[in-house]
């Protein structure tokens, strides 16, 4: 009997269907809770889902790569969803065209601030040189950030941690922070969140409507490209001092 249960568990643990079910049910619970609490930012569905899933993985001693392999089907949809961001962007392109120069200006400020603030805070509080290098591209999406870190000699895996923490922090603080600095325009709100908190931030802006998603997608895409250019330049300046 015991070997039967153990055998069954071995089957489930390696089964994509099982981890797919865990991922979908967990997210559904997290999302329903989020809606029921009138979207309390601290109950961000990504944060709640990964907290629950990590707890299950640790409790069952399931290695992360085994889980990721099984949950790939869900992960795969990030690609088509990213492509789909072209739709709100196109629908609101008139508004966007009127704002090109202001958008470019604030993108430059935001992109440089993201890099310099991360590096300066890391350096001030005694992060190792390896960590400092890995902090620099943290406001861009995961694949871009890991590519940059690899090029400047940091640790791509540490960068993936920083990207995740930045996205979650950004999604949690966005509403309170932008209310504090009295931003009431959804386009500005979306753009700032996209530039700062990449895909996790952009996912949060869905609740604010199509305009916010359009500007968040724009901020995310443009900052990805600009950070690729800025990080090597700024890090050379920083290292020479």
């Amino acid at each position: 009997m015991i070997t039967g249960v153990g055998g069954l568990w071995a089957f489930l643990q390696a089964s994509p269907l099982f981890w797919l079910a865990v991922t979908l049910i967990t997210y559904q619970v997290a999302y329903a809770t989020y809606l029921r609490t009138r979207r309390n930012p601290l109950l961000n569905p990504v944060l709640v889902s990964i907290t629950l899933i990590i707890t299950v993985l640790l409790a069952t001693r399931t290695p992360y790569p085994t889980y990721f392999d099984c949950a790939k089907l869900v992960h795969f949809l990030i690609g088509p969803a990213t492509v789909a961001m072209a739709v709100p962007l196109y629908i609101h392109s008139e508004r966007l065209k009127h704002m090109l120069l202001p958008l470019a200006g604030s993108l430059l400020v935001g992109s440089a601030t993201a890099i310099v603030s991360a590096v300066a805070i890391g350096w001030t509080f005694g992060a190792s040189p390896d960590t400092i290098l890995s902090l620099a591209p943290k406001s861009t999406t995961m694949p871009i950030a890991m590519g940059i870190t690899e090029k400047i000699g940091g640790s791509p895996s540490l960068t993936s941690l920083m990207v995740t923490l930045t996205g979650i922090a950004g999604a949690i603080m966005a509403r309170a922070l932008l209310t504090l600095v009295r931003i009431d325009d959804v386009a500005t709100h979306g753009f700032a969140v996209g530039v700062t908190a990449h895909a996790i931030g952009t996912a949060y802006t869905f609740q604010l409507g199509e305009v916010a998603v359009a500007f968040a997608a724009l901020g995310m895409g443009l900052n990805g490209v600009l950070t690729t250019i800025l990080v090597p330049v700024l890090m050379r300046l920083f290292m020479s001092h």
Partner: protein
Amino acid sequence: MVLALAALVVFQLAGETIVRLFALPVPGPVVGLVLLYVALAVHRSVPDGLRATGNVLLQHLMLFLVPATTGLMMHFRRLGDEWLPILLAAVGGTAVTMALTAVTLRLFLTKRRAP
């Protein structure tokens, strides 16, 4: 729905192919986004099915990010060793960046409207 999904996947594939061909430092889906934008601009409208399917995908983008984000658990040791600079950079750096980006955008927008 299926046609729209097929279109999104084809544009992503085109994006990935261009990235590979020209060794671009941006992800394939971002290039796919640009290509779809151009196609919509040429077509001058958004097909209903595409808008609906895109909306469903974007509504649950948070779900799709869960498997990769769970990778956080691989870094608990690093987080334990250097938690202070890592958390301060993640929270403080993010706050400063988001506020400055929003405030400068508002400033540039009102400045242009003023004269």
